[in-house]
């Protein structure tokens, strides 16, 4: 069974095969185009943000980072993304397992719907959540008055939005691994007498761990940069519900470029670090 092509990074390490090595000047042209494309579109923004972050001086950088609004925004991003990643890990793994293991009505439709968060604009995701869980709606009102939990414009709402946006990541990372898995291992475990849970935990789960970690890290890094749904769902209350990306947005709109730069740099570095970490893990596994 082949892998379902993944629509997000798995750190494909390009491995060159011994092929026809006839010289071609066109080859150099292609390489130039490809590297310029990547360099211009990706390296340049990376470098720009890093330079902007520190160009006003390291003490200015530190000052703008340590402003309470900035720190709070960064921490909120990290905190909510982490919660989301943790929840998503469990739910995503179980969902992938259910999708691969069992037959049930509507399975094909469900499998298709998994990709919905990839296909819908994030802003629209925010709108959807507001319409269901907003303070005007029955659910929102229920939580607010009866349970005294505010969903929108507060952490629960943020985590909800991130869960939606990051929903497919762990699932689509784990599914192909499960599909390719040899069922004989689990059958063997069951004949030995292992319960379903033991079988899952000690036979299946270890094989899934790399994929789960990759999916979780990816959804974490993705969430750090999420904006469209957050701006609708979390609003813009500094120190309360203002995420890192929203903070950058407001600072840019207000013209405070130093503040925007430093927080941008921090968020970017973390996300970039996570991506590189995933790739390193992948190379180490294949070495």
């Amino acid at each position, binding site marked *: 069974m082949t892998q*379902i*092509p993944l*629509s*997000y*990074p798995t*750190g*494909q*390490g*390009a491995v*060159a*095969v011994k*092929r*026809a090595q*006839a010289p071609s000047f066109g*080859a150099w042209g292609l390489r130039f185009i490809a*590297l310029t*494309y*990547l360099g211009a*579109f*990706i390296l*340049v*923004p990376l470098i*720009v*943000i890093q330079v902007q972050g520190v160009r006003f001086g390291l003490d200015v950088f530190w000052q703008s980072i340590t402003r309470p609004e900035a720190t709070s925004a960064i921490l909120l991003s990290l905190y909510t993304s982490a919660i989301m990643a943790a929840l998503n890990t469990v739910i995503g793994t179980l969902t992938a397992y*259910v999708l*691969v*293991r*069992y*037959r*049930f009505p509507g399975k094909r439709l469900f499998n*298709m*719907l998994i*990709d919905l968060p990839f*296909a*819908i*604009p994030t*802003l629209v995701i925010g709108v*959807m959540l507001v*319409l*269901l*869980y907003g303070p005007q*709606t029955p659910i929102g009102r229920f939580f607010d008055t009866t349970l005294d939990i505010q969903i929108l414009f507060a952490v629960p709402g943020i985590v909800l939005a991130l869960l939606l946006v990051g929903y497919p990541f762990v699932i689509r990372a784990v599914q192909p691994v*499960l599909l390719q898995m*040899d069922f004989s291992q*689990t059958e063997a475990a069951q004949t030995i007498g292992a319960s379903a849970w033991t079988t899952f935990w000690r036979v299946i789960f270890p094989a899934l761990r790399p994929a789960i970690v990759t999916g979780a890290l990816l959804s974490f890094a993705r969430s*750090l*940069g999420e*904006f469209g749904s957050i*701006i609708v769902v979390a609003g813009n209350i500094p120190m309360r519900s203002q995420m890192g*990306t929203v903070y*950058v*947005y407001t600072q*840019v709109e207000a013209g405070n*470029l130093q503040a925007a730069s430093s927080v*941008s740099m921090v*968020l*970017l570095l973390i996300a970039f670090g*996570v*991506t590189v970490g995933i*790739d390193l893990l992948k190379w180490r596994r294949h070495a």
Partner: protein
Amino acid sequence: MRETEARSPVAIALIIGVLGYAALLFIAPLLAMINGAFAKGLEPLLATFQDPSVIHAFQVTLLLSFAAVVINTLLGLTTAWVLVRHRFRGRNLFDTLVDIPFVFSPVIAGYAMIVLFGRNGWLAPPLFPIVFAFPGILLAKVFVSLPFIIREVQPVLEALTPEPEDAAYTIGASRWTTFRRVVLPEIWTALLYGIVLTFARAIGEFGAVTVISGNIEGYTETATSFVFRALNDRNNTGAYGVSVLLCLFSVVILIAMNALRGRIIHKEP
């Protein structure tokens, strides 16, 4: 792993749990949004779709997204080829770069563009304005949707055996003819899948566009920025209506994605 019927209570509980979560998480909100769009009846909704600024916003979105797809297809194919077939120092670094747009916040990307192309920017353009105009939006759309084609085509290219291409070379086919007639037919399903994903992402892009486009109504407004403005203006029907329409697009794209994904799986022997 083979499929089995769900028999045990654990299995049934798992299935219900998983499906229930999904229902709560996005199926319910989706329905709520459709409900909200029709809340004030059909006429206001239709009026929204006939509003010239809405039409214009959609035109801008579709046109620029299409352009982003074309750019990313041509350059992405080239890049996938180079990353798979060429060996050079730093290739792994460039390969890692491809994943960056997945995690690079679009807001930060928009900010980077302002730094580069804004009025006092590093590369303040001499000829035409970029930031508050089409080129900026296009750049943003290209950026956020850049990785998809590359990442979809790469594994398929890697899996190709070298013999058919070598055979074509010895028969006398140029590299371009060989690519067109031998390689492309093998990768076109993955390529198409990547194009669909690219298109979806480009349409849905909001963060960067918001930061840079200045949201001048009627000129550089995209469909997503229209929704944002409509929300701020308390034009709920407008916001929800356009959202539903965007969702419709997404569902069509989703169906296409799955049809192609199924083809990719069944194609392999």
